[in-house]
């Protein structure tokens, strides 16, 4: 694949990786690595007047679900509303709003009463408002969709994604992932930070990561 060379200066070459697998990834990579089941929403989201809302604490995977759905609907319009900003409702089918609790009252009023299918990532449950606006609503608690098996897959997929060459790379065993799940719950962000620190300290390639 690449020139055989002295690689001591290349990042994480000692682990046969290109970088720390638990650092921040680009949206593109994040979407590609999303390990969430969203096919079940396809049928609903082609019907007008429907809404799917993903509810959960930060770091639990709301954005990951939205990005995975976005990849399945090329006509979708996605907007992440940053703190303190007045986000614009995008044009698309479906319309996808991340951090929907930051929509203004007027934006919610107009958006919820439109007929375009909606996907929301939110800390606040909008079921009442959506139903009142005549929408068919499905609410998904993202925390309930995480389990040690999925966590093991997600963590190892990140490691594989930054693999440098053929050959061994470190792996997170099911037991380690289960231990992390027990300790931090479905807070993937915190789990990834723990592993970020672990990988920073790793000096030699080992088959299993120890936390």
């Amino acid at each position, binding site marked *: 694949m690449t020139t055989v060379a*002295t690689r001591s200066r290349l990042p994480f070459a000692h682990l046969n990786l290109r970088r720390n697998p638990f650092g921040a990834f680009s949206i593109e990579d994040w979407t590609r690595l999303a390990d969430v089941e969203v096919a079940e929403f396809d049928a609903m989201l082609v019907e007008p007047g429907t809404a799917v809302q993903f509810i959960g604490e930060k770091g639990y995977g709301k954005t990951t679900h939205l990005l995975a759905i976005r990849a399945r609907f090329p006509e979708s319009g996605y907007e992440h509303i*940053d703190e303190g900003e007045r986000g614009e409702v995008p044009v698309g089918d479906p319309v996808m709003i991340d951090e929907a609790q930051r929509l203004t009252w007027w934006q919610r009023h107009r958006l919820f009463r439109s007929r375009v299918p909606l996907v929301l990532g939110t800390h606040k449950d909008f079921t009442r408002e959506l139903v009142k606006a005549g929408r068919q609503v499905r609410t998904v608690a993202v925390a309930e969709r995480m389990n040690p098996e999925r966590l093991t897959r997600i963590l190892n997929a990140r490691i594989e994604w930054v693999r440098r060459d053929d050959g061994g790379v470190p792996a997170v065993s099911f037991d380690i992932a289960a231990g992390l799940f027990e300790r931090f719950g479905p807070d993937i962000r915190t789990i990834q930070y723990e592993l970020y620190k672990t990988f920073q300290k790793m000096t030699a390639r080992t088959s299993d990561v120890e936390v």
Partner: protein
Amino acid sequence: MSKCDISIEFDAENRTYRGGETVSGRVLVEVNKDLTSNGIKLIHFWQTHGYGNTDSGERIEEMLDTDSQLFAGEVRTYPFSFVADRQPLTYHGHYVNIDHYVRVEVDVPWAIDPKLEEDYVLLAGETPEEVTGKRDEIIEFEDETATQMGPVVKAIVFTLLGAVLLVVAFVALWLLPIILLVAGIFWIRKKMVSGRLGDVQLKTPHLVVGAGEDWPLELTFTPKKNFLINGIEVKMSCCESATSGHGTNSTTRTHTVVEEVHVLEPAGQLAANERFERQVALPFPETGAYSFDDSDNNITWTVEVRIDIPRFPDWKSKQTVQLLPAEFLEEPASGDHRLAMPAGDGVKPESVDREQSDPGTEPQQPADDTAVGIGAPSAEVAAAGSSELYDLIEQVNAADRFGNRREDLVESWSTRELDVVVTVDRVSSTFGSVVDSAYQNGQTVQGTVVETDQSIEVLVRPGGSVDDLSRGDQWRTRVVVAQWDSLYNRLVALDVASR
């Protein structure tokens, strides 16, 4: 099996290049299935990775191949070459990493494009254009990041920000008493400190410093009262900070890369009306953690001076310093032929100042130590310098930089006349107080003693014939050393040839 396998081979065996060098190699595309390609593109760029969101530089694209039909079984080879960036350099830290990449994408219509990215190591090489040798202000690198705002956009943003602040200030008038109270506390605190320390003057003439270089600092004040101190310290630190996420979901983490504390004055008593004066040169470490400032990833160097007074507010001052590779701040490259020219031949050397060099020209090879230059001065120049002066320089460098040893050493040599050849940096008028009034209103020649890195300042009497000297010239003269300037690590000498 993917439609094709891409591999990138670098010509440099260890994938290591210096800024301004040519990065070259080959791209191999091994076709597994017949396919139509809308082109094969090579992109090179720098990018951060680690805990923080990704910051990246401009992506420079080059087409390796246009529309073509690729057939299963064939292997296509595309040579590539481009000039490496001069900065930022490769850095691998805790939260912040900076790497340079070559990426190849095969554009396949209506399918996922096969692509491959490989990293290479960039070390300090050619000096970026923004580094002109000026050290008194932080250098803003003209980075071509996608997020960078143009001057007009910046002006609009700042105007809007100002307007918003005005509105907020108007609305928050009811907060005025609290603001006044806090400001009052700060004012009282400041008054208390100045009531003891008087007017504290901290001079840090350099805001830009090279890794491994000394950084001059001068602290002076005259206490108004007798009082005890826990000490006067200078804390040098380097921190990485990286921000992950956005808005309320964002988290910024910092990691201390370097923290060194130097004691300027140990615990003891300061006497009223007794002037405290310290000139020191803080040694910055040899490190690859050069200053880096981007939206979500930063490497920041600071120096904090603190006068620690027991049971009393401390005096402190914090300064951000920009650490660059020492190579960027060195004198003209060692291949510079001016250094080999016999002095005083009346022929002006060709100007090759960095700021006038053409960045678009072919990259230069790294300086060759065997070339005529600093490493191999001409016999004429070598013979011209006084070996006595070199002895002095050797002794000065060996002496402790924090005591008065260097000053004392230079003073002990002040009765001897020494020959010197100076590589001229600049000539300026002499202002202010000088060590000998006969040199007042004369001129000052600054430069380095040839064959060494030793900085020297030679004061010339009024009417001395140094007007014709320009940067890079070699000036031979006879001097007596007058003092050691610890602020700049420089010899100060008086020209006696023009007497």
